[in-house]
């Protein structure tokens, strides 16, 4: 009796739910088969959204990203010297906007906060009607807005984001990343660390306390422990802390002989400067010179850290001193426009914008599922990183990774990094399934 009652109750509940859910299906049916969010239709322009940190610890990177976006829009509209459109191949761009529509753009400030970034992205999508938005500098923000992209059905071309989660456990069908990630940094750094520091080291991690810091700490730890190093401690620090002295003092007496700074932007400048002021680099521990490693840093950070960064190892996605055709074309174009060389954040944002535009040209439409299919598995060259592939399984680009070192005798204020090694793609590649996660549906 009670079983029977159970079934009927459940059926009743299901029926009730079906009735309640009806309006939702009804409204979804209203959309025509191929209509989508912010369809530019017959409009003569198409709008892109550039959502970058203009305030906070990552503001320098954000400013440079914005310069790159503006340059990309200029080139897409056929103004300027066309930059990487001269070297990209294969390429379908014609210099008349995207699919014949002139490109316009709107900008927003993420403030390096998930909340503000999502509000800003929502404004772009709901008010300004963007077909694609881009930007970054914090993986926390990138993951937050990538979720929004999937919900609202607007493609997000991630800018600078280095956490494994962005294309790992938090990957989304509507999110794409050209930048490399912490896992690749670890794989690239490993052999160099072995050569320079040996196999018997004790590492101390200071880590920015959010998704990027966590995954970088994990990836670097896996690499160094694979070399035979031990890990003394892993200390999490708040983002934008400003003063890191309370975290650095314990390093002095911990017995560790390597400090790994999983910090970025102004945080890294502050923590590194303070570590040097505390005399860490002049110390001898366990009969070895104390070393500092900054697994991810950029030229912009090198400018801020000055002398303190000299001789310190790290990895980079791209550097303006690369000698290939694409890099030279981009540096020239950016330099003519702004008077100084671009950062790696600028390069990735510029490339992402062009890649999206090219995918639309290939698809012959702005309809996101078609554009996504064009980007998935897309192989290209001539954009400054050598032959590159957008892996379809996780929307991560695979290309070579640079191991860099702070230059001892810089010849100019921009000539700050030595490229120690260009690590080929085969050495940094990994199986797409190791991080889990699901891309989700094409059509939302």
């Amino acid at each position, binding site marked *: 009796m009670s079983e029977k009652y159970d079934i009927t109750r459940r059926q009743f509940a299901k029926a009730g739910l079906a009735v309640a859910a009806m309006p939702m299906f009804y*409204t979804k049916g209203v959309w025509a088969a191929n209509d989508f969010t912010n369809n530019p239709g017959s409009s003569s322009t198409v709008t892109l959204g550039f959502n970058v940190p203009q305030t906070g610890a990552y503001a320098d990177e954000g400013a440079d990203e914005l310069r790159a976006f503006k340059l990309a829009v200029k080139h897409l509209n056929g103004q300027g010297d066309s930059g990487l459109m001269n070297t990209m191949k294969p390429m379908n761009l014609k210099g008349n906007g995207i699919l014949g529509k002139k490109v316009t753009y709107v900008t927003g400030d993420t403030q390096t906060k998930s909340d503000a970034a999502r509000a800003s992205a*929502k404004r772009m999508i709901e008010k300004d009607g963007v077909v694609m938005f881009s930007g970054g500098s914090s993986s926390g923000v990138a993951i*937050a807005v990538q979720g929004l992209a999937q919900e609202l059905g607007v493609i997000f071309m991630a800018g600078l984001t280095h956490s494994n989660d962005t294309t790992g456990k938090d990957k989304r069908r509507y999110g794409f990343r050209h930048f490399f990630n912490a896992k690749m940094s670890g794989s690239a750094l490993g052999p160099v660390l072995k050569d320079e520091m040996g196999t018997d080291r004790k590492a101390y991690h200071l880590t920015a306390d959010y998704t990027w810091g966590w995954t970088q700490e994990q990836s670097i730890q896996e690499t160094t422990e694979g070399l035979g190093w031990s890990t003394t401690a892993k200390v999490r620090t708040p983002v934008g802390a400003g003063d890191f002295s309370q975290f650095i003092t314990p390093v002095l007496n911990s017995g560790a002989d390597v400090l790994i700074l999983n910090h970025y932007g102004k945080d890294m400048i502050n923590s590194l400067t303070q570590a040097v002021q505390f005399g860490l680099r002049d110390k001898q521990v366990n009969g070895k010179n104390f070393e500092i490693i900054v697994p991810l840093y950029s030229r912009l950070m090198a400018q801020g850290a000055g002398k303190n960064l000299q001789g310190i190892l790290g990895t980079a996605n791209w550097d303006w001193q690369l000698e290939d055709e694409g890099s030279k074309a981009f540096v020239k174009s950016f330099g003519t426009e702004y008077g100084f060389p671009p950062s790696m954040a600028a390069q990735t944002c510029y490339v992402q914008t062009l890649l999206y535009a090219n995918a639309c040209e290939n698809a012959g439409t702005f309809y996101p599922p078609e554009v996504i299919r064009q980007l998935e598995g897309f192989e290209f060259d001539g954009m400054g990183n050598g032959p590159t592939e957008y892996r379809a399984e996780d929307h991560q680009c695979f290309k070579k990774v640079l191991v860099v070192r702070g230059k001892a005798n810089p010849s100019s204020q921009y000539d700050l990094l030595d490229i120690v090694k260009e690590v080929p793609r085969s050495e940094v590649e990994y199986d797409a399934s190791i991080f889990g996660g699901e891309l989700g549906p094409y059509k939302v």
Partner: protein
Amino acid sequence: MMNSIKQQLMNLFKKQSDLTTILLFAAGVLTMPIWLDPIGANYPDLLQKFVIFGIFAVGYNILFGLTGYLSFGHAVFLGVGSYTAVWSFKLFTMNVLPAMLFATLISGLIAAAIGFVSMRRSGIYFSILTLAFAQMFYNLAYSVLIPITNGETGLQLRMHDIRIIDNYFSDPAPGLPSTELFGMSMNGYSGFYFCAVVLILAFYVAMKIFRSPFGMKLKAIKSNQHRMRYTGSDTRPYLITAFIISGMFAGLAGALLAVTDPLAGAERMQWTASGEVILMTILGGVGTLFGPLLGVGIIKYLENIFSTINESVLQQFFSFLPQWGENFMVAIVSPFVGDGWHLTLGILFMIIIIFLPGGLMEGFQKIKKRYLTKGVKDSESTTKQE
């Protein structure tokens, strides 16, 4: 006899004025998409922010406006509300009602705890205590509570959350689920209208509190707490109740933030967020019913619209001027828009505090008074002429 009729009439008038107030208010809120369109503020996300922070400010005003107790940590309840709501989405159902209920209750409980301790002091000591609690919660969210808050990355929905109730009824659909009210999506305009209805209800409750004996007691505490105590009435329970009620309003607002966008980050609990609601209340008018809402409107408008005006927009705006005039105007105006919107807000705040200490509502009353007294004078002068 005459007196009692008069009394009845007065009562009727008063009741009617309550009813008309709430009707006018409801009409004003629900037509926001129409009258905010010309100033570029008609899009769902901003409209939602207006009404949600409206609830926050209305609730805050119950504490600050009525009792004069300046809480510097109200954003805690906003954050607690958001986290609770997202957890309700993750564990139970995507339906928004349980989320709102849990959020209101739990922030009420936390408000009771914080209020119990903080209300032992008044004035600046009370403010500092609440600030200390807020900072404590904020730091907890980034350290020990990371399993609950997911730290800097923020608490988000995942495809494989438990969602006991939803999964009991039906198999999960592909992709991330979205928040709903019995099938009605909480994205876009439907989300706004839902929040607007909640704001109207919240406003009605606040209005009832303002005009109740309880509200009168709170006002009495504000004007002279010592005298209240001497007359033998214990003020503490009233203060704590007011604190809890305003905490619950904030929790509700936090839940709605999660309803319209299911993500909770600890930056919602930062002291700047607590400061913002104080600015909103003071800007609009402390202790007035409508003032805090005006404050919300101004601050959220500046934050979302003013901050996006860049040089190219200004150039378009001033393009009617000759080239040198255009450049000149752009150069003058640009520091105050875009990134500089805080500067505009600061100046506006200073002007209002210096010239209208009672906020914008005082300004309106001054205008009303001047207009009315002018009318009286006019009629006087005409009678003289006769």
